[in-house]
């Protein structure tokens, strides 16, 4: 089995770095069948998901990952990734804590986000 832990870790690093620098380019991580549930609001498909992410009402955002855990969930190389951390938006003083879970699926040699659930958990 591939090193799902290493994949998860690389993915998480890449995901939040991209999110913080230019979240429009997260589109490449999603596919048509991908689903994002952001604070309960669902978006389906790479285009809609990117729109949702780009349209979030802040300009600057910074994620800091506190914990990351991953488990293989299927024989075809699916990985479930759970992240908790903090984010800071725009000029706000307070960090917001979040929890995000990803279901990664393999597509040939690469992975994409099949399911993505984001929640702020406390402030």
């Amino acid at each position, binding site marked *: 089995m591939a090193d799902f*832990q290493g994949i*998860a*870790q690389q993915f998480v690093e890449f995901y939040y770095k991209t999110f913080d620098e230019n979240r429009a380019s997260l589109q490449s991580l999603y596919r048509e069948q991908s*689903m994002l*549930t952001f*604070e*309960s*609001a*669902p978006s389906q498909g790479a285009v809609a998901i990117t729109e949702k992410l780009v*349209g*979030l*009402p*802040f300009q600057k955002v910074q994620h800091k*990952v*506190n*914990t*990351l*855990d*991953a*488990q*293989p*969930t*299927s*024989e*075809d190389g*699916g990985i*479930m990734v*759970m992240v*908790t951390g*903090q984010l800071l*938006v*725009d*000029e*706000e*003083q*307070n*960090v*917001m*804590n979040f*929890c995000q*879970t990803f*279901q990664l699926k393999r597509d040939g040699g690469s992975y994409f986000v099949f*399911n993505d*659930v984001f*929640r*702020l*958990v*406390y*402030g």
Partner: protein
Amino acid sequence: MAPAVSKRVASSDGFARGAAHKRRSGVRTDRDGDLMMDATPRNQNNKIGKGRGKPTTNTSTTTTNGTAKPRNNIHAKSTQNAIIRHLTSGNANIKQAQPSNIKSVKVSGWKNSKASTNEDGGVHSLLTFLEKKVTTNLTKKSISNGNRKPVQVSLKKYHIDGDAVIISTTPDVGASLCVMNKWVWAGVNLQIEPAQQSNAFSDKNGGDQEMQADARPILTDLISRRYNADLKLLDLSGLASDPQLKANGVLTSIAQPANFFPALMKVCDEQFKTAQEKRDTVFSVTLANNDLRSVSPVTTLAQTFPDLKNLDLSNNKIPTLSSMINWKHKFRALDQLLLNGNPLEQQDPAFYIQIRNWYPALRTLNNQQIRTDQEALQSSHGVKKALPVRGPMFHDEGDIAKNFIISFFAGYDTDRAALVNMYYDTESIFSFSLNNRGISDPLSRQKMEKQEWDAYIRKSRNLKALSHLPARVNRQYTGPAKILEIISSLPKTRHPDLGNSGQKWCIECQSLPSVPDATRQHPGGVGGLIIDIHGEFEELDERAGNAEKSRSFDRNFVLGPGVNGGVRIVSDTLTIRAYGGFAAWKPDELESNGQQEPLITEVCRRTGMIVSFSKQCLEESGWNLEEAIQRFEGAKAAGLIPAEAFVQA
């Protein structure tokens, strides 16, 4: 049972399955009221700007203030917003957004012309000349814009002021006149410039946010005179009647000249090195008695003092809430707001509700309490500052997830061995990680101890912290025996009741098309569920069994069909962290459910009670309007309603 109640995770039947339907459609919380102002028509402005090319005589050599750039007169909204953006981002193009609004033009230098011997000193002749030139200029422009009609300009409104003639006209004509600065007429060079109040804020550089050097001392003086260090109050009330400002001829009102207030805020900003210093120095600002019809002229206050606690806007002329839109969702720490003495009170009786939504920490509006201290703390807690929170999305299939969750947490709290037996099989995976870095709920009085996390830390599988491969592998537990061993070693727990304390849970569920098939009959996998749970539990003392600590947790389950008809856990991932409360997923009040707001408004109207009491009354009546009114009448007759429940006249 009232269906509207089930907006939270768990309602009286345990789960809010309907929550997804109650989501607001894509209405985006509009934090930046000023963004909407971008729609200010640019074309209008460009019309004039583009026509500027013609006279070559008056351009580069001119160092006086006589170019055609419109100055000082601010097309309030667009320019002001450009300034705000300029001040904050440093890159807004003021020039482009600069409108022409020259309604008054001063023409001088004509006294010694060849026409000065005319009966009227040459004024009539001068005006005829100017009319003709402007007519030609504007007609050309009009034609180039596709208009066939010639323009006829006549300059009828004028008066002589010493050596100058002051012409009142339209912005188009005004700008066109200014283009002719330095033109030669009857043997003299004319000086043509926008007539402006001669005060320190007359801007000679074209950048509206700039102020002249002599404005600074006036503003610094104003701030020092108007700042009360004891109260940490900056008193900007009644500025138009400030004797010093009057003596300096600075302003006719707080909004005029329009760059006065932004300049004042800029000088305020310069007094502080850090945001913290600013927060500690200015708690309150009053803008009372300024004849404000909108907050546009003073909107920069929100940039300079975003953390203001108290704001007084009383005795202005604000007609509706839309005149305050620039401050919607600003001032996130605002505790008290005074709006009394504004027409808005009569014209927009439901403004209480909106204002309450706009300012999450606001406790007192017009000296009436609209939030309890607890509520204000919770809602200003930072969580919902940028992101609207809706009820959770819960798409169950035949109550599978619901039943699983109820049974799982009951088992986890009381009999972990039976639980493992029921839900985990040889391929189930469990791991947990400890987040000991998150900040905790400020409402919680719980102290952190030195060995706070000892029970968890050695088994935590935080891949961010844990790079050693054997540890990574060892701390992932597969199969019932290992899982029972690890979860038995974790402290005993008590989770809040899903029925009675549903608000403490945030549970989301959706289907996952392919999870491994336990029976191995479907190599492509079978349909499963993915469940995300955020919540809390009490950590129980091992022997005494009483609650020791509150913790928060996040837990993700992937469920698949079990061999014997039930469900099995494919994967179980847990994160444990310091207690963080449940404010984060409490849906935005009122806004979260479009059905509530009109009901509250109606109850306010019919009972005369303030929002919080009206809401409470509705809640107690299951959001049934008539029941709420009856309940109110009954309570009122019984003398049970306190005086503070009512809007005070």
